[in-house]
């Protein structure tokens, strides 16, 4: 069940708690820096200049110049990599690589080379080929509880450093979701159905963020996604700090 916070009432999220789990916390509008109820920032303009490093396979949709939207008009396209349920942080980035500090550029790059290297041998195709730093799969498709386990931020960072732009999972562990948004490394998108059962690694897919839809060109099927909501602009800006600066909440 989708939850969106309206900008008119930024301090309250109304969310319906489902029997599985409630919709993840998206980093909502910040009001710590001002004391007014209404957000004092201007709504981010949804434009997308594909940056070479992070969004290798991003197609910029027609820029919406002045329309305030809570989701950026962006598409992601490429081959998908499919994993199962409960992919924990040790599989995403094994503990022995945690000595790499994500805020150091050369170590950030190295983290990418180890993304998903902890997956068991039953996964025949590697997410990142040995000796490479980048993946050929910009989109990951997963089952339930993706990112469970540790709070290590190295997990979404490794995926982003490797060149993944989005994960489409049935559900997320909360710290992983939160870290993905805070760092702006990847979009943690949620599907309505078990997409991991209907896609295979190598399928060519497109994600239309604004329409919240995943299209599998190989199978010809289409899937609705839960709207990314207010987390979208935060990730697009590059994380909470970048967003707060862009929005004028903290001095640039």
């Amino acid at each position: 069940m989708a939850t969106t916070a309206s900008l008119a009432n930024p301090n309250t999220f109304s969310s319906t708690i489902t029997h599985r789990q409630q919709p993840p916390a998206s980093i909502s509008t910040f009001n710590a820096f001002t004391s007014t109820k209404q957000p004092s920032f201007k709504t981010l303009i949804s434009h997308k200049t594909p940056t070479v490093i992070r969004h290798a396979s991003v197609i910029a949709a027609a820029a919406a110049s002045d329309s305030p939207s809570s989701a950026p008009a962006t598409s992601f396209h490429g081959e998908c990599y499919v994993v199962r349920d409960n992919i924990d942080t040790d599989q995403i980035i094994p503990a022995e690589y945690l000595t790499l500090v994500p805020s150091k550029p050369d170590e950030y790059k190295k983290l990418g080379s180890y993304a998903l290297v902890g997956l068991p041998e039953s996964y025949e195709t590697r997410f990142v080929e040995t000796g490479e730093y980048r993946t050929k799969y910009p989109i990951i498709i997963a089952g339930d509880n993706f990112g469970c386990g540790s709070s290590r931020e190295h997990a979404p960072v490794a995926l982003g450093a490797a060149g993944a732009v989005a994960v489409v999972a049935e559900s997320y562990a909360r710290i992983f979701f939160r870290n993905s948004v805070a760092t702006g490394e990847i979009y943690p998108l949620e599907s309505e159905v078990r997409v991991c059962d209907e896609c295979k690694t190598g399928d060519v897919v497109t994600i239309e963020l604004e329409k919240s839809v995943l299209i599998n060109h190989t199978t010809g099927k289409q899937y609705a996604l839960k709207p990314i909501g207010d987390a979208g602009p935060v990730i697009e800006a590059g994380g909470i700090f970048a967003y707060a600066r862009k929005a004028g909440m903290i001095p640039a």
Partner: protein
Amino acid sequence: MATSSFISSLPSFHISISKKKKVSTKIMAVMTPQTSNRKPSTTGSVKSGMTMTEKIFARASERTQLSPGENVWVNVDMLMTHDVCGPGAIGVFKKEFGDDAKVWDREKVVLIPDHYIFTSDERANRNVAILRDFANEQNIKYFYDITDRGDFKANPDYKGVCHIALAQEGHCRPGEILVGTDSHTCTAGAFGQFATGIGNTDAGFVLGTGKLLLKVPPTLRFVLDGEMPDYLLAKDLILQIIGEISVSGATYKAMEFVGTTIENLSMEERMTLCNMVVEAGGKNGIVPADATTFKYLEDKTSLSYEPVYSDAQAGYLAEYRIDVTKLEPLVAKPHSPDNRGLARECKDVKLDRVYIGSCTGGKTEDFVAAAKLLLASGDKVKVPTFIVPATQKVWMDLYTLPVPGSGGKTCSQIFEQAGCDSPRSPSCGACVGGPLDTYARMNEPQICLSTTNRNFPGRMGHKEGQIYLASPYTAAASALTGFVTDPREFLH
């Protein structure tokens, strides 16, 4: 009230799950009832009761009332970070607030190297140095440094595992908000506070502002009643619960533990319980503070604190009632903490090694429990048995505290007589695998039973390694036979 009988391999066991809002409980509201500034007609609800987690959020966000689902800015009381995530958090802090920026409060930041300490890995060593430089530059009050890796005892400040050190140093206080760059920060909920794990970026934000944007979690209530059988430990209780609700059963939720069993648990046992709530996806675990808590804190902190308690009419998402007298020793089988099984039903599983350590199962009482069982048998272990105390204090206790009923023997003596490996330098050790030269790391595809908290593939090192999670009693019993063993085989 809807109840469901849980059909499983557990004999005559009943969990009742009620999805009702009102809870009958002996917990008193200690705070005076909050008066809402809204007129009753605008709320549409008579209830203003809050759970203790909600109350902590309310106080920390300077509000009188709030409900689950609301995103609020809270004032953080303590921030903890260690050698793995500290450098990253510091990097974010400096990048975002400036190279010359100062942390929001030099007395509210605790820097604890504990993960990759006793290793020759250069980057791991460098990461401790990064913490040191930051501590010096910022004049951080609590930095538990280690400079001589060859002899941990030569480092008077060094503590060991962060979650146990936080408790032992008096940094966990009822009613407060503690965040840390480690998923098992939830351990501190044992002290009746809100404690949860966060990432480097959030931690960098807290370093600069002392605030964090958090969503108020709804609470799952676990009522555990009955006298704890003498073959069970808190580890069995939490394995029972995780097996019940699954690894995502508590995602985004608070897990509140009450009941007569809980009231009779020691602080260390409560810590074991809260430690693994993250394995159920939980945002935080919490136990109401009581005389046991206050006694524990007496000699550890001089800071004042104000405990909070759930209102009688607080709302819960669900309530689980557990009669602990009906439980049996458990294991979590490979490869998930919710893959629950009875220890006695796994007796054909041959083990290659047993590991006793970590924030979950490496505290003083965990070792005393293991020692008691080894003593009761009088035999020697049949597989390599690794003993890794969580902190320096625990290590000292192993060598000085007499084990009850042993005629004055210490844990270390009992371990030695049973043929266990000698106790090792305190740290997180092999629980999390770590650099390749970490003591007791699983570098081959072996089967290990451990008192640690996670058993996903590759957790302790080798991807094909198999890990059975269990209590210290079960670990000791299994070490004696070389197979997964129910501790009742040795405890009368």
